[in-house]
C-alpha cells in the first residue's frame, strides 16, 4: 500500500508533448488574418460612402421640404394632371381653364387638403372624380407653394400664404370625408364655380353593419381587423394599411388567405371565419375609409431612387416602373393589383422580400420576378418613397366593380 503510494508521482502535471505546429495551420491563420484586415478596411470605406449617401439623402429630403411650387407640382400632381395641366381625356380633369382653379383661393386649398370623391364637371366634360387628400402628406408651407404655383400657371395668380392654408386647415379640421364632388365644393365654398353634377351617396347595404362589427370587435371570438390594422384601417409597423384598397382586391385577398393561395399564418384562421358576403362587405368597408396617411419613410431608403423606380423603373435591371401596373399614382388597378400609395414602408419592403423568396410562382403573377431583381437598398428606397404619397382615394360602394 505504502509502496504503491510512493510509486505515484504526486507532483505530476498533465502535459502535451512538445510538437511543432504544422505549417498549414500557420497558413490558414495568416490567410484569415489578411482576409480579416481586408474586410475591416472595406467595411470602413463602406461606412464612409454610407455616411456620404446619408448626407446626400438628408439634402434631398431638405430639398423636398423646400421644393418650389412647380417642383412640387411635377412630383405630386403631374402623374395625373400631366406636366402641362391638360389632364387625361375622360378620366382626369384639366387644370387649364378649370373653374375650380379660377375660384377663390380657399377652393384649391380645400381640395388639396381633403381630396374629391364624386362627379365633377370641368370645361364642359363630366368626370368621375377621385382625387387624393394631401392634407396628411404636405405641410402648410408646401401646400401654400403648390397652390400658389397652380393658380399662377392656370388660374388668376396671386400668392397663397402658409398662414392662409393653416386657417383653412383649422376651418375644416373636423371633416373626415373627401369633398363629395364638384357640387359640394361649389355650394359650400364658392358659388361662382357654377352648376355641378349632383352627388348621389351610395345606398347602404345591411351587410355594411356586419362588416363594421367584424372590423371593430371581430367575429365569434376571433380577432377584429382593428386589433392589428387599426380602427381606421391605417395599419401599423409591418401591418398593412387597408383604407382605400379596392373592394374587390380586399375580398380576393381574404379568399386567398382562406384557401392558402396566399400563405399567411396570422390571416388564415381569421379569414377562414368569414363568409363570401363578409369578404365582400369588408372590402367595401375598407375601400370607403378616407383615413389620412400616417406612413412616413422609416427604412433609411433613398427616396429619390424610390421615386425613380416608381415613376420610371430601371431598364438596366429590367425593372418596369411600379406605376406602369399599379396605376399612374400607385392607386392600384382593381381587382388584382393593389394600391401601394401611403402603404407602411416596413410592410411594403417586407412583402417585396417575401415575394422575392417565392419559388412556386402563381400563374400570371410577375411580382416575384420583379421583387427578385430589386436589391435590398432598392426595396427600402421604393417602400420609403411610396410612404410619402397621399393615400389612394376612398371609394364608395357604387364604384365597386
Amino acid at each position: 500500500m505504502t509502496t504503491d503510494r510512493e510509486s505515484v508521482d504526486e507532483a505530476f502535471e498533465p502535459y502535451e508533448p512538445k510538437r511543432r505546429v504544422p505549417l498549414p495551420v500557420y497558413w490558414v491563420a495568416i490567410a484569415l488574418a489578411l482576409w480579416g484586415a481586408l474586410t475591416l478596411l472595406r467595411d470602413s470605406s463602406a461606412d464612409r460612402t454610407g455616411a456620404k449617401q446619408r448626407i446626400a439623402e438628408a439634402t434631398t429630403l431638405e430639398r423636398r421640404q423646400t421644393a418650389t411650387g412647380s417642383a412640387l407640382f411635377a412630383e405630386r400632381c403631374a402623374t395625373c394632371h400631366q406636366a402641362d395641366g391638360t389632364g387625361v381625356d375622360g378620366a382626369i380633369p384639366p387644370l387649364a381653364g378649370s373653374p375650380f382653379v379660377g375660384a377663390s383661393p380657399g377652393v384649391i386649398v380645400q381640395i388639396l387638403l381633403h381630396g374629391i370623391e364624386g362627379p365633377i364637371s370641368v370645361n364642359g366634360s363630366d368626370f368621375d372624380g377621385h382625387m387624393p387628400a394631401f392634407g396628411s402628406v404636405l405641410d402648410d408651407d408646401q401646400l401654400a407653394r403648390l397652390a400658389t404655383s397652380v393658380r399662377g400657371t392656370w388660374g388668376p395668380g396671386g400668392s397663397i400664404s402658409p398662414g392662409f392654408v393653416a386657417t383653412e386647415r383649422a376651418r375644416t379640421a373636423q371633416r373626415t370625408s373627401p369633398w363629395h364632388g364638384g357640387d359640394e365644393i361649389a355650394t359650400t365654398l364658392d358659388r361662382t364655380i357654377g352648376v355641378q353634377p349632383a352627388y348621389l351617396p351610395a345606398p347602404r347595404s345591411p351587410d355594411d353593419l356586419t362588416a363594421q362589427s367584424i372590423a371593430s370587435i371581430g367575429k365569434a371570438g376571433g380577432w377584429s381587423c382593428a386589433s392589428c390594422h387599426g380602427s381606421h384601417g391605417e395599419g401599423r409597423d409591418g401591418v398593412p394599411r387597408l383604407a382605400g384598397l379596392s373592394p374587390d382586391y380586399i375580398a380576393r385577398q381574404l379568399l386567398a388567405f382562406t384557401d392558402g393561395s396566399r400563405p399567411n399564418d396570422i390571416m388564415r384562421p381569421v379569414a377562414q371565419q368569414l363568409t363570401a358576403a363578409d369578404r365582400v362587405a369588408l372590402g367595401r368597408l375598407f375601400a370607403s375609409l378616407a383615413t389620412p396617411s400616417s406612413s412616413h419613410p422609416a427604412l433609411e431608403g433613398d427616396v429619390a431612387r424610390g421615386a425613380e423606380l416608381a415613376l420610371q423603373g430601371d431598364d438596366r435591371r429590367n425593372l418596369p416602373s411600379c406605376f406602369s401596373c399599379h396605376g399612374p399614382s400607385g392607386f392600384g388597378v382593381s381587382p388584382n393589383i393593389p394600391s401601394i400609395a401611403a402603404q407602411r414602408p416596413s410592410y411594403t419592403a417586407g412583402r417585396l422580400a417575401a415575394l422575392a423568396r417565392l419559388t412556386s410562382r402563381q400563374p400570371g403573377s410577375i411580382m416575384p420576378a420583379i421583387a427578385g431583381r430589386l436589391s435590398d437598398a432598392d426595396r427600402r428606397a421604393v417602400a420609403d418613397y411610396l410612404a410619402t404619397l397621399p393615400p389612394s382615394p376612398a371609394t364608395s360602394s357604387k364604384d365597386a366593380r
Partner: protein
Amino acid sequence: MNDRKQQPATDEGARDQIHGRVARTSIYALTGGVLLFVFAVLVRDEFHFRGQESAPPEASGPLSFTPPPMSKIPDGPAGTSIRHGMAIFENTGTEAKPFVGNQLACRSCHLDAGRKADSAPMWAAWVSYPQYRAKNKKMNTMEDRLNGCFSYSMNAQGSPSGGPPPKGDPIYADLEAYFHWLASNAPTGAKLKGAGFLKLKLPQSGYDRDRGRAVYAQHCASCHGDDGQGRTDINGRQVFPPLWGPRSYNWGAGMAQLNNAAGFIKANMPLGAGNTLTDQQAWDAAAWIDSQERPKDPRQKGTVAENVVAFHSGEKTFYGKTVDGHLLGSGTEVPVQASRR
C-alpha cells in the same frame, strides 16, 4: 570542465538550430499564408464577378444604344417641343384627341415612352427614316410613318376628326422633336440592337388560337382582362390597354400581324417578365388576340376578301379568315366615342 565547456557549446548550437528552424518556419508560414490568401481572393472574384461580367460587344453585330435620361431634355423652345412630343406620346388620347379613335396611346406598344429595346423604340426608328415601305409602296418620311400610326394603330377613322393629323400638323413636329432627342448621338442608318420588334421564328407546330386561349388565360388575363378590354384605375384612366374590340388598334395596324405581335409578346410580356414565355406560347397568345374582331381596315373599299388581296397578301394574320362563323375583318360595330367614359 569538459562538461562545463561542452554545455554552453551545445546550448549555442541548439539555440542556433532553434533560431534557424523558427526563421525557416516563419518564412514557410508567411509565404504559404499569403499564397493561400491570394488564392482565396482570386477564387472569390472568379465566382463573384463571373455572373456580372457582360459579354464583350461583338465587333460586327448591331450596335447597342441607350437614349439620354429624361432629365437631360434641354430648356428653351426646343425643350418645349420635345416635352410636348413626349406628352403626345404618353397621353395621346388627350394631347391629340381629334385624331385618336381608340383607348390606346403611342406608349401602349412602344414601352417606356418609346425607350425600351425590342418594343419598336423611337430612337431606332428615328435613324432609319426616310425609308421605303412595301406597305404603301413609296419612300416614307417620319411624318408619313406617323400618319400611318394614327390611321391604323390609333384608329383615326373613329376619332372626332375622322382621320389622322393633316400634313404639317404641329403634332408631327413635336413627336419628331422627341424622337430626334431620344436618338441623340445614335448613328444614322446603322443597325441598332433592339430596333423594331423581336423577329421570332414560327415554331414547327405553327400557331394555334385554342392553345393561345389557354396561354392568354394564364399569363395575360389578370391585367388585360378575360375579355381583352384592358383595365382602368378608379378614375377610369386606361392602365392596361384593350387588345381587341372597338377600343383597340384596327386591322391595318402592324400589331394585327401575328409575327409583330408574337415578337412583342415574347420580348415584353408579361410586363416586367419579358422573355419568360416560350416562342410557342408567344405565337399562340398572339393567335388568340389576333383572332378577335377589331375596327375595320380603313383602306377597305370593297369586300374583306378584296381587301385581303389588295393589302394583306403574304401577311401572317387572321384578317379575312372565318372563326366561329364570323368573318374577321368585318369590323366592330360600337362607335368608339360612345364607349369612352
